[in-house]
């Protein structure tokens, strides 16, 4: 996949219908008093629909910062983010929330779930926010819980599930909302290696069968080896981008 080759500066939305993510000159500098900490420094990146990409790199290289900007959770200091043809530059907090709700599925590192809701209700949560009908939620959530292998545990609360099971509920929730893109920031960091492998296999399967686009950050060599495309980040810059 070609990364920095094109120099398109078109601002029109849906200008790149085949691209789910398009980053240009993406920069994020944190300010701590007088000191400036550059976390992401001029990243250009394109992700095509249906890709499965791992963002790798040492601790502090800017993986989380980058994912947060792609996920409309944080705003860049400079550069542009386009997700599913929509430029995020000038959106208000509420519009960004709407963007996340409609187009992006999230799997966080830990504490993904709402403790007072059971697995089914957690998986249903984003669909509820999207205003989907009860009948549709019932149908979709039953299917995705079966896909992540938790059909039998639908009525358990997060506290009654293992860490791996909790992360699978989070994956179920992410895909139930039918997003254009699923972002996962070190989703396996708190899991044992068996659960981690299972979770990654699950995501690969969903990528293959549903054609869903995944962007995952990870340290884990097993995950990195297994990915079709790996982007290496160092000091906030892409140092290599390799596709198998």
């Amino acid at each position, binding site marked *: 996949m070609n990364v920095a080759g094109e120099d398109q500066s078109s601002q029109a939305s849906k200008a790149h219908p085949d691209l789910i993510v398009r980053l240009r000159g993406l920069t994020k500098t944190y300010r701590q008093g007088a000191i400036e900490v550059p976390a992401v420094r001029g990243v250009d990146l394109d992700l095509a629909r249906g890709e499965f990409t791992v963002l790798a790199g040492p601790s502090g290289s800017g993986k989380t910062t980058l994912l*947060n900007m792609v*996920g409309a*959770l*944080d705003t860049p200091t400079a550069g542009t983010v386009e997700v599913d043809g929509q430029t995020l530059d000038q959106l208000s*907090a*509420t519009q960004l*929330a*709407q*963007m*996340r*709700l*409609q187009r992006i599925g*999230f799997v*966080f590192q830990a*504490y*993904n*779930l*709402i*403790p*007072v*809701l059971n697995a089914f209700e957690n998986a249903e*949560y*984003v669909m*509820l*926010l999207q205003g989907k009908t009860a009948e549709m939620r019932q149908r979709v959530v039953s299917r995705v819980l079966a896909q992540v292998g938790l059909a039998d545990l639908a009525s358990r609360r997060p506290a009654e599930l293992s860490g791996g099971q909790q992360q699978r509920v989070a994956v179920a*929730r992410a895909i139930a909302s039918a997003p254009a893109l699923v972002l996962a920031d070190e989703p396996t960091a708190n899991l044992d290696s068996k659960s981690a492998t299972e979770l990654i296999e699950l995501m690969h399967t969903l990528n293959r069968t549903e054609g869903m686009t995944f962007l995952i950050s990870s340290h884990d060599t097993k995950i990195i080896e297994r990915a079709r495309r790996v982007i290496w980040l160092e000091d906030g810059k892409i140092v290599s981008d390799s596709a198998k």
Partner: protein
Amino acid sequence: MIWRLAWRSVLRQRRRTLITVIAISLGLALILFSVGMQIDTHQTMIDLGVRMGSGHVAIQAEGYQQHRSLDYLLSGSRRLLAQLRQLSGVRRAIPRLEAAGLVRAGESSAAIAVVGVDPSEEQAVAGLARKSYRRRGRYLSADVRGNRPADIYIGSGLAQTLQVGVGDRVVLTVSPLDDRANSSAAFVVCGIFRTGVTELDSFLVQLPLSAAQQLLSVGDGLTQIAVLLEDGDSARATAARWQARFAAQHGTAMRREILPWQVTHAELYDGLKLDKNFNYLIAGIIFLIIAIGIFNTIQMSVVERTRQFGVMMALGTAPRRMFALVVAEATLIAIVGAIVGLAIGLALHGLMVRYGIDIETMSGGVDSYEFGGVALTGTLHSRLPVPIVALWAAIIVAITLLSGIYPALRATRLRPVSAMRHS
């Protein structure tokens, strides 16, 4: 969904919710209890005061309220009494003739207020004439028997000063309306009362109206007609209406003052108002303490869930939904607290209605409590009109909701990225 989430979140913090609900419900119960007792006490005192005194509405010649002299007599009183008794909303119309006088028995004498009354009317009204105040003898009898002295009804304090008992003679001296300097007559003590109010027990006597009118040479003149209304709360409005109607009928030819009890019993009215305001102050303090407690609880529950709220916002939950969630939690706590508080408060009210609290028990031995010219005796009960109950329940719910607003606003201001890093 918001209600389900709110309900479960509230239930999850079982102990904290319980403490908050207890604080709200005890606060409400306490206020209902004290308000109920206060309303009953006040109503009882007003009722006693207007029966013994000037009625809900007093009709007098203009100027009498200020000068209190026989120069301000109510004329045409017979017709006026008959007219008043025809009016709807009037329970009783009570004729009174009051003057200053001196009472003597043997070597002792005392300055007193003389009140001429219609004995059968007074017994029906149950003011000073009520049985529970009678210590000795009987009440006044209406019939004046030839040359025999008429009855006089005196208080226990006066009886002690004069060293007289039932059946003893006393001589009453007054300044009559005609030219004579003084007018005296002998009376026989028919009974002795004790109200607990010194001004009455030591300084007031009652006579049959006809005997008083004769002694004072006022013909059928009265100083006042005290009117008891069916609805005491309408005293002000009724007095104003009558005053306007009277002015329209008679113009400036004849002037009367038609005054509500709030004016004629100003001391009682002001005292009750002060007592009420003091109660509001206490209620305000109780509510402030409750509000601080609730605020603290909700604030804590929001801070504790910073990470969870961060995740919810990251997933696309709109800020106004976060606000609604926190307010919904406060609402549930408020409603449960109000329901429990109503249950406890109304149960206490029921006990007070049924059994009451004896004044002697409350005051530690004193059997009456004097206030604004009225003595409260016996047992205190409770009275709680539905609108009052609803008002206080609504106030506590509103306070709970207000306490939730700031924490709810804080929840909307969370930034998902930093909130999720919160530990």
